[in-house]
């Protein structure tokens, strides 16, 4: 186990270096002089001044040295300064992370709450009408753009029914003092029920829009995994012993069937984080996704670079966590050399 863990960690190192290198190249290859971009109009600053700034930023150094400095910056948590906001990139990113995590976790929760029971019903009643409807719905779920679903939800719940807010994380005047940045958590900690309800109302539509794809995928995995487990000998034994059917499914089969589901969810969480930027834009959700989209539009390359780096590293870590959790949860998988 330890050696497996060590080998997985060692394998992650070249990927990590590769990711930082690609992100660095992205910036290095950007057309135009970063100093000119940073200073706004080049005419105001003299050539000597520009050279001095270029030297200060290390932009007159050889390529590899610049890359080394970039890596060293990452190690110290220094991702440079934003051209548009004139503030450290690391700060601009970290202030947006709680909103994105809150939304992603909530979306994953909705997906699981719907998908696992639906997958169980589909597996138990295979090829029934219910199963076929579920299969078709899950195919529809993966075939539509999440942001479009968001717009449809807005048309239904905000325009027609007028029950849910269209944008943002919270209405004004709920008396909530943000502390952790996770507004739902803050509201609960402060015992502010009104604020918690308001936060939930704002979360509902973007989370639902984001969860559709994950819901569909989780349901299909639960269905196929559980149908496989149900056919196995120990399940038949349990039935033969006279264990009630509901108990057989939930206690005996489902427990083992959930293993691939857990891994898929962990992996999809990474995809969810990366894919949510369009949904964030639709709902004016102040998260990382909206920040990177704005940064690309305003050509704020240091900020784009920082965001892409954070996304990719999160993804690498989540993948690693999924692999390791799978190994821990399932002692049967071989930790031998991968093929």
């Amino acid at each position: 186990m330890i050696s497996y863990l060590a080998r997985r960690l060692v394998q992650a190192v070249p990927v990590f270096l590769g990711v930082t290198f690609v992100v660095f190249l992205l910036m290095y290859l950007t057309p135009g002089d970063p100093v000119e971009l940073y200073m706004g109009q080049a005419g105001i600053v003299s050539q000597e001044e520009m050279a001095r700034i270029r030297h200060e930023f290390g932009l007159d150094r050889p390529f590899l040295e610049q890359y080394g400095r970039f890596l060293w910056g990452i190690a110290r948590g220094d991702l440079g300064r934003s051209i548009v906001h004139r503030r450290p990139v690391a700060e601009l990113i970290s202030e947006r992370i709680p909103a994105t995590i809150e939304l992603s976790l909530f979306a994953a929760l909705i997906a699981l709450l719907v998908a696992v029971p639906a997958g169980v019903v589909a597996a138990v009643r295979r090829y029934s009408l219910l199963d076929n409807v579920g299969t078709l719905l899950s195919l529809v779920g993966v075939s539509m753009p999440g942001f479009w679903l968001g717009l449809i939800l807005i048309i239904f719940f905000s325009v027609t029914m007028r029950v849910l807010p269209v944008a943002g994380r919270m209405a004004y005047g709920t008396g909530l003092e943000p502390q952790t940045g996770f507004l739902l958590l803050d509201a609960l900690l402060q015992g502010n029920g009104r604020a918690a309800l308001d936060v939930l109302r704002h979360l509902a539509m973007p989370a639902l829009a984001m969860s559709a794809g994950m819901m569909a995928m989780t349901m299909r995995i639960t269905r196929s995994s559980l149908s496989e487990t149900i056919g196995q000998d120990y399940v038949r034994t349990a039935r033969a012993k006279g264990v009630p059917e509901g108990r057989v499914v939930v206690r005996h089969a489902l427990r083992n069937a959930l293993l691939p589901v857990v891994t898929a969810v962990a992996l999809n969480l990474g995809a969810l984080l990366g894919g949510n930027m369009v949904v964030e834009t639709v709902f004016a959700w102040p998260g990382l996704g909206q920040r990177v989209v704005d940064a690309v539009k305003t050509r704020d390359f240091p900020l784009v670079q920082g965001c892409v780096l954070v996304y990719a590293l999160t993804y690498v870590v989540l993948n690693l966590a999924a692999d390791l959790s799978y190994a821990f949860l399932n002692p049967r998988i071989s930790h031998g050399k991968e093929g």
Partner: protein
Amino acid sequence: MGSRAWRAFRRNRLALGGGILVLVLSLSSLLSPWIAPHDPLRGRLPDRLRSPSIVSASGKPYLLGTDNLGRDILSRILHGGRVSISLGLLVVGVSIVVGVVLGLVSAYAGGWVDTTVQRLVDVLLAFPYLVLAIALMGLFGPGFLNLVVALAFKEWVTACRIVRSEALALKNAAFVEASRAAGAGLFRILFRHLLPNVIPGAVVVATLRVGWVILMEASLSFLGLGIQPPQPSWGVIIADGRDYLFRAWWISTFPGIAILLFVLGVNLLGEGLRDALDPRLASERLSE
């Protein structure tokens, strides 16, 4: 497709339905210059924000309504389909060629070639698809070809991995050994012997990935980083309607339905092809 595979495919009614969906939408997009009832780019301002209707006081009706500039939504969706579908096919086509060649070479050559390609694959896999595409579009600037490159940049990885694993299994098969013993060159072994065996897998991957690429194009165009208005693509039309959700729900709704139907059709078709041609692929993760 062998006759057995074709029979298996024909029995699969969902796959057949998907194929018909894809065929109908592709044909109507292809023929859009002749069958679209109105000009997709020039609208009639007096007719702006008309709701969907089968009758019209002035000439041809607007079956799916009009947008804020009085342009016919149905005509825009038909023309937009041309852009979205051809972009999807182009991106997947380029990616499949790159993926198949790199996958074959990587598997057959082994050693440092294989290691290099696989490290590159690992690194690209670490980037969320859309994040990478958005950053590249920021770097390249807008344009159809830039969009193709930005989407294909990571897309080839899926085909490469699947082709590599299939080719690895075949590399030491008896017929390849025999050919090598008979003095066949590298090129001949790769493209005459290995390639035909990995083609079914590549076809399945290509079909299933077209839907994904079209979803990504829609996302990028919706954000204003893909196809540039006034040229319509399905994502562009959805974006057009975003500011009018409260007054004209139809502008954003219908192009989304077009995407949904096309991608659903492609997915049904792809899964049917997979079951008929290459059931082993079922366990591969084909998303992201």
